């Protein structure tokens, strides 16, 4: 496929996850939903099932309001809304980690709001660097395995997990290479970039890796387009079509990101060595850093944003703050301060899944462009 065809393929997958789910179901594959921010997808994959990411949708909330107060983030509320609406019908289970307070309550509400799809909790440690953090992560995975076996009838095998880890590490590498490749091609729009990341949530990773590597190869043969203003994005999500259109209209190019649904997923590989594949997977989580939902007393994430922006030659940082997201809201003042001190222009845009009017965001971005 050429670049255009590949981008169309990513777009279709990103915008029609239900079709993708139906096609996997038709192949006889079981689907396990995976909620933000990190879940042990490799385990699900190794058991022969397809993990599909659920990060909510840009919809109006109705039924979920019976379960959540208004000040819980719209990502988790819309996940439950879609669950109640039957959007995920056919899924065998959902894995929800407890990495923030909103995710903790999401799991509890899910049990009563969507009883047809079993809730599997993944309890991660925050003190993940010492040995006891590794042990507890592994225990959490063992519990997920037990629940998955009960819910789906599939069986876990450590050797198969080792093979899945290779699939996921290869995908991580492809996604990291993709970011670098796209940074050199301003003709690829931000909407197209988002499609590639989003489609990764809905495809088996070996299939996605193949397509991404094909795209990287095709791009290498393509003349880069006219330069745009290079920026870095940071936040939980950056997939709202209206928002991406505003960035594209203003000739802004996202050259690197610290978005939870995008690059944060692919920074850390499971290490090559370990007592078992499951230990290697636990080590992967324990080695993760630079994320608002992972304990970070040194605030390394903040320094990394500045460093990444400089490395990617980003002229500014666009902070996409998901409304009611505590972890991000606490980090924001420090991110702003660090960027200001480093002389990196930055702009705050508050977003949520229920945004209808993007005019305020448009004005903020236009003003930011003038500043740049």
């Amino acid at each position: 496929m050429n670049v255009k065809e590949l981008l169309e393929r990513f777009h279709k997958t990103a915008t029609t996850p239900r079709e993708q789910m139906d096609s996997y179901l038709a192949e006889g594959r079981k689907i396990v939903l995976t909620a933000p921010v990190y879940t042990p997808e490799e385990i699900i994959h190794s058991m022969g099932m397809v993990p599909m990411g659920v990060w909510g949708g840009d919809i109006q909330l109705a039924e979920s309001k019976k379960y959540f107060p208004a000040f819980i983030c719209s990502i988790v509320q819309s996940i439950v809304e879609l669950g109640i609406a039957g959007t995920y019908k056919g899924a065998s289970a959902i894995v929800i980690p407890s990495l923030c307070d909103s995710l903790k309550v999401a799991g509890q509400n899910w049990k009563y709001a969507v009883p047809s799809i079993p809730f599997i909790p993944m309890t991660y440690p925050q003190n993940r660097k010492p040995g006891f953090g590794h042990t507890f992560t592994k225990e959490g995975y063992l519990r997920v395995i037990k629940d998955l076996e009960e819910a789906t009838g599939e069986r876990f095998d450590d050797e198969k997990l080792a093979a899945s880890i290779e699939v996921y590490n290869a995908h991580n590498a492809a996604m990291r290479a993709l970011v670098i490749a796209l940074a050199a091609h301003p003709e690829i729009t931000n909407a197209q970039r988002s499609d590639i990341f989003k489609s990764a949530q809905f495809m088996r990773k070996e299939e996605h890796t193949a397509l991404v590597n094909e795209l990287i190869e095709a791009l290498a043969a393509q003349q880069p387009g006219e330069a745009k203003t290079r920026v870095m994005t940071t936040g939980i999500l950056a997939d709202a079509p209206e928002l991406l259109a505003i960035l594209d209209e203003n000739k802004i190019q996202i050259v690197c990101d610290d978005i939870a649904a995008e690059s944060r997923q692919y920074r850390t590989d499971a290490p090559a060595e370990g007592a078992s594949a499951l230990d290697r997977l636990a080590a992967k989580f324990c080695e993760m850093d630079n994320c608002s939902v992972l304990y970070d007393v040194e605030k390394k994430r903040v320094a990394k944003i500045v460093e990444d922006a400089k490395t990617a030659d980003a002229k500014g940082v666009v902070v996409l703050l998901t409304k009611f997201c505590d972890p991000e809201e606490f980090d924001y003042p420090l991110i702003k301060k660090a960027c200001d001190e480093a002389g990196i222009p930055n702009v705050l845009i508050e977003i949520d899944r229920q945004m209808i009017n993007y005019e305020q965001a448009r004005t903020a971005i236009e003003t930011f462009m003038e500043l740049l």
Partner: protein
Amino acid sequence: MAEAVKKKRPPIDPNSAKARLGKIAAEAYSSAQEAKERGEMVGWCSSNFPVEIPETLGLAVVYPENQAAGIAARGAGERMCNVSEADGYSNDICAYARISLAYAKIKSAPEQDMPQPDFLLCCNNICNCMIKWYENLAKELDIPMILIDIPFNPDYEVSDAELAYVRDQFRAAIAQLEELTGKKWSEEKYKEVMEISGRTSRAWLKATACAKYTPSPFNGFDLLNHMAVMVTARGKLEAAEAMEKLYEEYEENHEKGESTFRTEEKYRVMFEGIACWPWLRVTATGLKSRGINMVTTIYADAFGFIYEDFDDMCRAYCKVPNAINLEYARDKRVKLAKDNKVEGLLVHTNRSCKLWSGFMPEMSRQIGEACDIPVVSFDGDQADPRNFSEAQYDTRVQGLMEIMETRK
């Protein structure tokens, strides 16, 4: 609305539990200030951090949540929130955190001053927001932070895996603190502290359980004041003695047919959530003027920690209200409601507390069904006065009273 029948307010006896508890709460701040002035290290400590650790090590600690509640109750919540919001903190963030981050910056609040910290003791068994708040304090003040991570437990029981993880962290925190402060852990001292903390907790829970009597020998809002001692001083001997005195007084009240709820108790409700500190008088009066006594709340009982040994202590800290699943949280409340013959549930939908409020609609529905009582909620905030509407509160409480009346 019921006509208020006011009983005469007796003068405060300096030997009363109320006076003694008030003194202990005030001394929690003054003794830490004195320690600071002597050159000792002072810690800021989250409310459900195992107090046994600093107490055994002989470390002076103060409690930012308690301070924020005090500042908010004395009318300065908005002023302090404005300081942190000017620094870029969203007004959606927990107001205790906003007040605390503001205090760490401006270092003064006449409503409740306390010494600046040399280290931070954080435990997230009440919320992960606590981690983010303390991370920022550690960064801004450039001081060490010790985190005991007690995850939200999705299961009814504490698993062996969770117990082991928490126990290892307790031991690691002790070692870190020994290194940081030069103080030494003594098993003998720990046993003493454990005994006192247990004594205080048992007395506190016995006192709050006096709500089983009809009428209740106390106004439930008293518990919100006395609770400060449970947060800041439950490992101290004078706290144990004062709580035992409180229990005695409540029993005496019952025997004499008296109560600190100084009007006729027409209805008995359970209150859900953290107190609405900036509007404490309004929320109390809205109930009392209708003869509604808030006889019980999980918020008060949450600070009674009963355990028998180190492992049991770890388990107790895994079972605080915000660390447990919906079913366990529901069952604890159903027991409280039934034990105390509650006729209605008043839920504070607390804008500051996502975890506490996040599954409250479903849980309160289940409590209402299990206890066959009406459930009414109101919007508010534990410390930001802007998130509360007196008119809404009044309407909701009136509605609750009318339903309770029809069910008499």
